[in-house]
């Protein structure tokens, strides 16, 4: 913290700033109008991810506005000396996938990006959160940001996860318990044996979706799993002496007896594979459960609750198992990492894609795509009748062509099931890569545990 303003926000210094094409152009325009440069260009890393095609990336972007936006980012990075992993760059990918895998995200950092899923980086014990474009401009201009102090929440999940239950199910379960606004005003620390036993990829999925319960950010204290991940990253940007950095990182944990404004406890063993049935991520349930009669946990009015079910074409009390599915999407900053594609592949191996399903298989980055090739996963997907696309945010927010048509059902590993999120009129059911894979091969909503047992 640089300075605290009396009765006002704190001035926070930002160690790492990620930018992408959609929320940065107006910020660069602002600098131009003020006639000022980027203050610390080396602290900012750029990628094109939100508004790019996932097919034929070597060709010109078809949509004129999208092309213009990506070109503007390239120009702005060139003008200001910012490292840019643009389309067709060997390190291109979704901003929250490439930051960690390229060694830019490191424990103890303050990290921001004009994207709400910046909370992903909290998995490394960072203070990471999403910001608006005015704030992107602040960081570009001064490397600082003004932020009110958040309250602190700790969520402890102890116990062992059941078969077929993933970190995506943990976070969907928590959000279903505390609602989509239950974390608003808080920074959340996730702890407990069910969290510390997770890989870094799985931890990122949890921190990624902390924004979906309204939390400013989510974090997990770095431990041996974190350090092991960082040891394997080809280069840790700005760190020459790994052991020295490691000794600093090891100091990063909440003090013994630290006081939180709110503490919640959950038992991992009671979590089943989850699926959402409504139009916010808090409207989730176990895949074999029935849709509740009202929003008892979230406390929404029956007007909002029924509007949501009506949009989805569902009714209170309905079971979703066996409901036909039209689309399956695996990818995004939530579940677009190598481990997610391995899990999906594990389930589809030896099976075939259901005829009624259109699948969008979109790696989170070029490096993830390369690994999929190296590990023979692409062949597993192709043998099962799936086509693997090129990296990008794709159908998670459907800014590009990867839209789900109106009225169609998509089981999606992404993070938001808002109305129209995956295309106007699209109906999204959020789930884990395993549950998505089960839907992809059966053509209907299926409990992945049924297929894993075979």
């Amino acid at each position, binding site marked *: 913290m*640089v*300075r605290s*303003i009396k*009765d*006002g*926000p704190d*001035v926070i*210094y930002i160690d790492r700033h990620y930018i992408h094409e959609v*929320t940065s*152009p*107006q910020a660069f*325009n*602002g600098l131009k109008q*003020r006639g000022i440069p980027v*203050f610390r260009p080396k602290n900012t890393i750029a990628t094109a991810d939100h*508004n790019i095609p996932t097919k034929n990336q070597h060709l010109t972007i078809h*949509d004129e*506005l*999208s092309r*213009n*936006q990506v070109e*503007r980012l390239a120009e702005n990075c060139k003008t200001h000396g910012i490292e840019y992993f643009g389309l067709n760059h060997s390190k291109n990918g979704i901003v929250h996938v490439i930051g960690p895998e390229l060694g830019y995200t490191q424990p103890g950092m303050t990290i921001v990006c004009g*994207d*709400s899923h910046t909370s992903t980086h909290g998995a490394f014990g960072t203070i990471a959160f*999403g*910001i*608006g*474009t*005015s*704030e992107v401009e*602040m960081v570009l*201009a*001064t*490397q*600082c940001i*003004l932020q*009110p102090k*958040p309250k602190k929440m700790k969520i402890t999940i102890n116990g062992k996860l059941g078969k077929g239950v993933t970190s995506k199910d943990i976070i969907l379960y928590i959000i279903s318990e505390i609602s*989509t*606004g239950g974390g*608003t*005003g808080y920074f959340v620390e996730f702890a407990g044996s069910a969290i510390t036993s997770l890989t870094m990829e799985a931890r990122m999925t949890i921190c990624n979706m902390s*924004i*979906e319960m*309204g939390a*400013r950010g989510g974090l997990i204290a770095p431990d041996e799993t974190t350090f092991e991940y960082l040891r394997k990253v080809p280069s840790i940007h700005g760190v020459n002496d790994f052991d020295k950095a490691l000794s600093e990182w090891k100091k990063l944990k909440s003090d013994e007896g630290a006081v939180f404004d709110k503490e919640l406890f959950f038992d991992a063993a009671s979590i089943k594979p989850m699926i959402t049935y409504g139009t*916010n991520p*808090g409207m989730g349930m176990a895949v074999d459960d029935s849709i509740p009669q009202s929003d008892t946990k*979230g406390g*929404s009015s029956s007007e*909002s609750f029924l*509007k949501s079910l009506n949009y989805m074409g569902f009714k209170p009390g309905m079971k979703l198992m066996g409901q036909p599915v039209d689309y399956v999407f695996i990818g995004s900053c939530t579940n677009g990492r190598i481990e997610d594609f391995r899990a999906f592949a594990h389930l589809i191996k030896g099976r075939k894609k259901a005829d009624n399903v259109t699948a969008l298989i979109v790696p989170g980055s070029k490096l993830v795509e390369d690994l999929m090739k190296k590990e023979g996963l692409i062949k597993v997907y192709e043998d099962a009748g799936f086509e693997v696309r090129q990296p990008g945010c794709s159908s998670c*927010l*459907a800014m590009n062509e990867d839209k789900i048509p109106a009225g169609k059902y998509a089981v999606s590993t992404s993070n*938001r099931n*808002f109305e*129209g*999120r995956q295309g*106007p*009129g699209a109906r999204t059911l959020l789930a884990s890569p395993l549950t998505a894979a089960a839907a992809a091969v059966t053509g209907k909503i299926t409990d992945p545990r049924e297929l894993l047992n075979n």
Partner: protein
Amino acid sequence: MPKEKFEILETACVPLPLENVDTDQIIPARFLSATSRDGFGDNLFRDWRYLKSGEKNPDFVLNNPKFGGKVLVTGKNFGSGSSREHAVWAIYDYGFRAVVSSFFADIFKNNSLNNGLLPIIISEDLLKKLHSQIQSDPSTKVRIDLEKQTLTIISTGDSVKFEINSYKKECLLKGLDDIDFLLTMKDQIKEYENNKSMVK
């Protein structure tokens, strides 16, 4: 750069009594390809405001001639989801200057304050009362006085004091900008950087 100063508002309200309205509803992602801040108001609440045919949806409040005014009165957890500031630009560009709810998503609240849109938090009870008042009499006016931090329903006389941190209040009243403030701190920021690198 100076922005429009926040003046006392005395205006009718537009009611949107839904909870968890996310920024994807406020401005859908397919309208985010622009590179300027202008013109987003045309697509505010696009998919609720227009039918698939492209015609106006007569059931949506923005198309109901009974309702108008510069204050949007919403349900709890307004502005959740994506950090897109375009949502605030759309609301402001449409003509709203304040949004009332029982609570706002954090990023949306910050974005609003950075753009001269005042997010006013009132109790769930008062919010309910305000909604029913507006429904029964669409010409219901509120008076919002930022200096005094009060929101008053003029016809009923119900008045409430709302919270805002004093720095942000000052910024809104004077039309000041965080970046201008931060730019005056460059020396302190450099000093912070020097101290930090010495620790390493």
